[in-house]
Every structure is written in C-alpha cells, then in structure tokens.
C-alpha cells in the first residue's frame, strides 16, 4: 500500500504530469498564468475539486451504469465547483472575485475528467483521493512556475509587488521597466508552456540516456 502511494505521487508530479506529459488542462494554463496569485487560487480550487470528485466517483464506481458514466462524472464535478463558488461568494468575496471567471474553466478542465476516467472509476477511495490531490499539485506546480515568469516579465511584479521597475530605475534606466505585453497575452502562455515541455522532455530524455528512471 505504501509503495503504491509513492508511485501515485511520483507519477502525478513528474512522470505522468497532467500538463506537460498528458497535455491536459491547457485552456486554464493559458488563461490563468499571467498572474501568480490567480494561478495559486486556481490551483487550490482545482486540487480541491479533483480530490473530492475522485472520492465520490470512487465510492459510487460500482453502481454507476456504464453508458451514463460521463454524465454522472460531470454532474459530480460541476456540483462541487458551483458549491465552492457559492461558498466563496458568501464567505470570501474577494477570493471569489478572483476565481469567478475561472469557474467554467474548472468544470471543463480535462484533468479532472481524465483522472475520473483513468483512475477514480477503477480504484478504491483512498488511492483515488490521493491521486486527485497529487494530480492537482502536479498541475499547480507547473503552472506556478510559468506564472512566476509571465508575471515577472509581463508586469514586472512578483505577487503584485513591483520588482523590475524599481530595479531598472536603480540601475539608471530613466524609463524604468517596460512591460512585455506579449507575456501577459495568450501567445506568451503558449510559448512559455512550450519551453517548459521542451525542458521537461530534455531532462527526461537525458535521464533515460544515462540509465536513471
């Protein structure tokens, strides 16, 4: 049981990473990663929904008729998302304003659906829940790295605090830092993700060539 848990963790975080290897959850990767804080909130939201949806689907897996499998899965997933959205609106309205535009993107996030189909529908609740959490974290860490760079180059800020502008000014540039608008807009997201995959694949190939893995 312990080995299996470790496998789940390693798989979801790197070897079978939802974003860089399975190429899932791309819509949100592009939309959310221009600001680090929004990415963090999105990652937390997604992890929560994936974990608990996996739990419910796993508990119900033996009584769901096969033909309507997907309908039941989307029902469970979307219910959780809307419950999270309403609860945030009531108790944490500021965070809800940040997450608001992304509610639809969480419901249709292929990662959640993918994990339900690939894992939760065929495994016991414990591992399913863990897989849900780890998939969420696997997604989140990749996005946070991309978001850090996009926010830094796109806005010159880290977590909303201006960093590059004061730096450039202190180095003598009178105009300060000029934003890379390209990084804030979607094409920047495409290229950042492509770079990430390039690096990730190169590292994997390197490891393979040198006998590790």
């Amino acid at each position: 049981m312990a080995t299996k848990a470790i496998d789940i963790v390693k798989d979801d975080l790197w070897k079978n990473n939802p974003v860089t290897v399975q190429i899932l959850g791309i819509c949100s990767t592009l939309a959310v990663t221009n600001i680090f804080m929004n990415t963090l909130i999105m990652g937390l939201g997604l992890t929560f929904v994936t974990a608990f949806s996996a739990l419910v689907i796993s508990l119900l897996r033996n009584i769901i008729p096969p033909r309507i499998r997907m309908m039941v899965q989307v029902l469970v997933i979307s219910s959780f998302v809307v419950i999270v959205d309403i609860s945030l609106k009531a108790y944490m309205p500021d965070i809800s304003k940040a997450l608001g535009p992304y509610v639809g993107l969480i419901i249709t996030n292929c990662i959640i659906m993918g994990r339900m189909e690939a894992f939760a529908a065929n495994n016991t609740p414990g591992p399913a829940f863990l897989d849900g959490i780890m998939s969420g974290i696997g997604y989140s860490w990749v996005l946070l790295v991309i978001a850090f760079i996009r926010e830094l180059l796109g806005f010159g800020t880290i977590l909303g605090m201006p960093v590059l502008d004061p730096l450039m000014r202190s180095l003598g540039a009178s105009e300060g830092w000029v934003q890379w608008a390209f990084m804030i807009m979607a094409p920047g997201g495409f290229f950042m993700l492509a770079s990430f995959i390039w690096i990730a694949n190169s590292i994997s190939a390197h490891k393979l060539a040198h006998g590790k893995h």
Partner: protein
Amino acid sequence: MKKAFLTVLFMTLITVVFIASLAWVNESSRSRIAQNDKIFRLQSVLYACNLMPEGVDETLLSPAMTTSDLPWNNEAILHLTRQRIVSVTLPITPVVRDKLKGSMLSLTDSAEVQVLFDEAGAVLGYGFPLRGKGLWGALGAFAVVSADLNTMIGLDFTEQSETPGLGARITESWFKYFFRGLKIDGLHRPDGEGVVMVNRKIQSNLESPTNSVQAITGATQTCNGVVNMVNADLRFYLALLRGNMSILNDQFKGVN
C-alpha cells in the same frame, strides 16, 4: 428494457441529490451574498465619490489596488453613505426625452440620480450608473460628475468579466485615477468630443485636466468598451441633469 429504466432512474436520483445539495448551499448563503453585494456596490459608489476610509490617501496606496482592498469597515460605509449621499428621482420630460433618443432611459418616465454633498451640506456632484459592453461580457459602472457638470469626480466598476491581468485591470486604482478631474464638457454639445483613450499619460487629470485617460496595453477591446460606455451614458445623464437643473437647485438649496 429494464436496464434502460434502471439507468434513467439512477441518473434522475443522483441528479436530484446533487441539485438538492446545491440548492441548500445556495439558499443558506443567499442573505450573506446579498449583503456582500450591497457592501461591494456601496464601496464602488463611495470610491466614485472620492470618499476614502478615515485617514487613507489614495495617492499613497499601491497603483494596482482595487476598491475591495480599501480598509473600510461596514459601519463606516453605511454611515458615510447615509450622511453624504441622497437619492433623487428626476422626471424625464418630453423636452429632455428628445435629447435622450436611442438610450434605454428614453423608454422610462424617470431616472434615479444620487446627489453627493460635502460636509457642510452643499452639493458636490451627481452620481449615476453606466452600462456598456466589454470583450467577454457586460460592463457596469458608477460615475460621479461635479456640480457644474463639466468634470468627473470619479468612476468605479460594479460589474465586469474581462480577462484577468488584461481587461480586468480597469478595476485597478491607477486606471480609475485618470477619471478624477476628467474634462467632460465636450459631451454637452452634440458633436463635441467625449472622453478619449491615449497610450500614455504623463500627468493625472487632477494635475492637468484633459479629456483623456490611459489605455491598458493588450486590452484594447475592453478599453474601447469602457470609453464607449462612458461617452454614451454620460451624454444622456448630462442631458437629463441639465434639463432638471431647476428642480435640483430648488430641492437642495440651503439643505444642511
């Protein structure tokens, strides 16, 4: 056939369970959400009126700050609103209605306008809602103009669903700051130039009054939506206020 029936039964059951839980969550948080929305709207109104929490100076805060970041407490919001803002309903007479052609206002008999007073009870300005269209969805704002109807005191957004990091930056204080002291006298003439958007502004409109505000790079559609909304709705409300100036002067002369 039995299989199909069981399948439909299962689907119906599970749908009922989940929708019931959702309905329960929705009902139990309805009043809280309504309260949050009310406070949010009042915060926007106060921001547009250039009223800040006790001891807070807008120019000293972070430029990326939004209205909900201001350190208000709910009692202060309600107290200030009651003390400084009064709602008044203005009739839309045929003379005024003529000028409002094409606006949704021309379909109604009256419109509600907020009157802003200073501490001594003199009229500082008038506030009203604006509606427009952004890139992703509707734009809603609240605008306050000065008592002489020639400059803007401020503006805040009550509704927007624009791209976070791009269009959504219209809610940031650096963008809204340009609406303070903005010249709107062009909107009194049918062919007058309204508010325009420029790439870069060196000075704020309080330092050097112009009719331009600064655009957001990469958010052209949203910015166009904002400017179109301001120009269209301001034209109508200014006409409404001009047409009812006598009523307003009578009602609020010598009010304490």
